[in-house]
């Protein structure tokens, strides 16, 4: 086993994560997040046209509806189009838009292969619900970890967890990737996965504290992280193999789900080693010092 000195450069890791998160939030306040129609309200229609037709031509056909739409091609032969607009079209309006395409390209009724519509108030609710779920999940997990380990582990694990979520949001803000409800589901998954990774390291820390009483907290972290390194990497690799194949082979909706998971699991692995562990050691060190002065 090679000994890794995780604690040596902890300031560097904290600075790196801090920089990404600050940059992400600056970008977010400047440009806002690129929210999908399930957050802003809007309509998506997926139509099989039978042949590849240019985006410009399609926007011309539906110009009269004044939708300001995003149009992309889809399907194996690029014969499908996905039309997205921030306007929330009800059933009658959707029928009219489809009617225009139907007439222009001589389509049958079943050419409309998919449609989604979200009212403007739905997005806010989904978001609030997700935030509440993450908070409740954090509190319950904190309680569980405090019982099974001790409170400092719980605090360090939850800090790492918030780090992961903020990091992921920052990446979306920096690269302007569309945030939609599968992003929320992915964030919630990461909440579970990242904590899992952190627990495995902490479990080893707990064991090493009992065994090696005279070592300081930094040394214990270095030993524990090194001992669990192969496991951490192997687990991440196998999980990323499965999620990676979902991303490469999946259709659009699966890709949208697999991408944040891929990023999130990578970030979760990084944070369990470089954020959660140093945080635990620093808090313990600080508490020990305080106690030392108090008893003097």
């Amino acid at each position: 086993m090679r000994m890794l000195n995780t604690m040596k450069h902890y300031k560097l890791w904290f600075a790196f994560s801090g920089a990404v998160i600050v940059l992400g939030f600056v970008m977010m306040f400047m440009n806002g997040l690129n929210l999908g129609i399930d957050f802003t309200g809007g309509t998506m229609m997926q139509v099989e046209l039978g042949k590849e037709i240019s985006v410009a031509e399609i926007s011309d056909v539906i110009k009269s509806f004044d939708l300001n739409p995003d149009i992309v091609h889809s399907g194996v032969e690029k014969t499908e189009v996905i039309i997205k607009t921030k306007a929330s079209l009800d059933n009658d309006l959707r029928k009219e838009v489809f009617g225009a395409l139907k007439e222009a390209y001589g389509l049958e009724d079943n050419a409309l292969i998919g449609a989604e519509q979200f009212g403007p108030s739905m997005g806010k609710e989904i978001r609030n619900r997700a935030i509440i779920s993450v908070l409740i999940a954090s509190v319950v997990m904190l309680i569980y970890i405090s019982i099974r380990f001790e409170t400092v582990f719980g605090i360090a694990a939850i800090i790492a967890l918030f780090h992961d979520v903020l990091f992921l949001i920052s990446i979306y803000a920096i690269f302007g990737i569309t945030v939609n409800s599968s992003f929320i589901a992915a964030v919630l998954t990461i909440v579970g996965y990242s904590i899992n990774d952190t627990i495995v390291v902490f479990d080893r820390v707990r064991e090493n504290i009992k065994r090696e009483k005279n070592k300081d907290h930094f040394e214990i972290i270095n030993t524990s992280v090194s001992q669990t390194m192969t496991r951490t990497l192997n687990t991440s690799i196998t999980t990323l193999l499965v999620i990676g194949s979902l991303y490469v082979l999946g259709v659009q909706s699966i890709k949208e789900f697999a991408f944040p998971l891929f990023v999130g699991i990578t970030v979760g692995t990084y944070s369990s080693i470089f954020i959660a562990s140093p945080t635990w050691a620093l808090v313990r060190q600080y508490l020990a010092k305080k106690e030392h002065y108090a008893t003097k």
Partner: protein
Amino acid sequence: MKGKNTLLFFLIVAVIAGTALIAINGLTLGTFSITPVKDQLKLGLDIKGGVVVVYEAQTDEKDDALARTMEQTKQMIGKRINELGLTEPIITLQGEKRLRIELPGVANAQEAIAVIGKTALLEFVLVTGDTPASEGMTLDAIESEQILTGINIEDAFVSQDEYNQPVVSLKFDSVGTTLFYEGTKKAIDNVNKRGQIAIVLDNDIISAPYTQIVISDGEAIVQGSFSYEEANSLAMLIRGGALPVKMTEVQTSVIGPTLGLDSFNSAIRAAIIGIILVMFFMIVFYRIPGVIASIALTLYAMLVIFVLIGLNATLTLPGIAGIVISLGMAVDANVIIFERLKEEMKVGKSLRASIDSGFHRAMSTIIDSNVTTFIAALILFAFGEGPIKGFAVTLMIGIISSMFTAVIVTKSMLKLSLGFTDRKKLYGSRG
């Protein structure tokens, strides 16, 4: 003893492999047959196609009154869906004032949505102002006086008028008959002021006939410019009665059958390739334990699918994602055990002793990490809705199955494998 263990090891492998093959391909032996699991799974709307609509009631009612209204609306919408001949609808109350309606495999989704969400408040009004009513106008555009509403209509059905045009024939109940008699009488008395009756559906005038005679038999026809299908759904709506509140469409999702199936097939293909890659990685890295982990993974995948079938749960795309994540965790439990095993062997313990103590020490890690993830899944299940719930269910099933296969199956097979080899090198030890 050794030979017996070896035999048992390969017997287990054969049983698991055999079950997997039967599960994938199905089996027919004379009259006895097993359908492939693929056909036994209940697939969600996002896979087999269908419509999901969420309606929100436009009302200021609260608490009990609201709950009553929603229940009534739910039942009426259920009745409408039945009359349309659509099968297996799922109507659920979402929050306080929303109804989520799921219709699997509706071929013409737009027509269905148009009919289901209509308030369908039918009114007969007397035109009292100077502006004549005509089809396509709204009720607000004319001066009028209400004669009766849809409540007083006993029956409605489609028939044909003298020009072979489809019309909706109405039959009033006794109160309606009296009201209509008085209404037509008023219309004739007012003949110089117009004498027109307007038939209004949800504020839109759909027909505006003139009466020459007093009608006392309690029957009327609605003539309008509609097709046979439109007349049919109008008759159905009138028969069913109006919804107690106006419902607006706040979310819709229409999935064509080919779209869903494409996503399903691509997800399954991706999952299979992912599993094969994982098995390959595990075998290269851990040798014999890697082979055992692969067998445990096969069993794990089958367990998840069997539990889904057993619970009659619906498999959705997010659900497949949940299975994939828990697959990662199933591998994780194995990795934790094998790494411990290597450590134990390194301090010089025998293979058998290493397996025992390695397992013992890996257990607390596996339990703590799985319980915390399970907590997250449980909270997703409680607070999430629709797709997130589906994801949480498969994640929970997956976590439990992976604990079972990793702890019980992996352990027993590791021990049995000692029957044919005890070379530490084959168990990942570099010493």
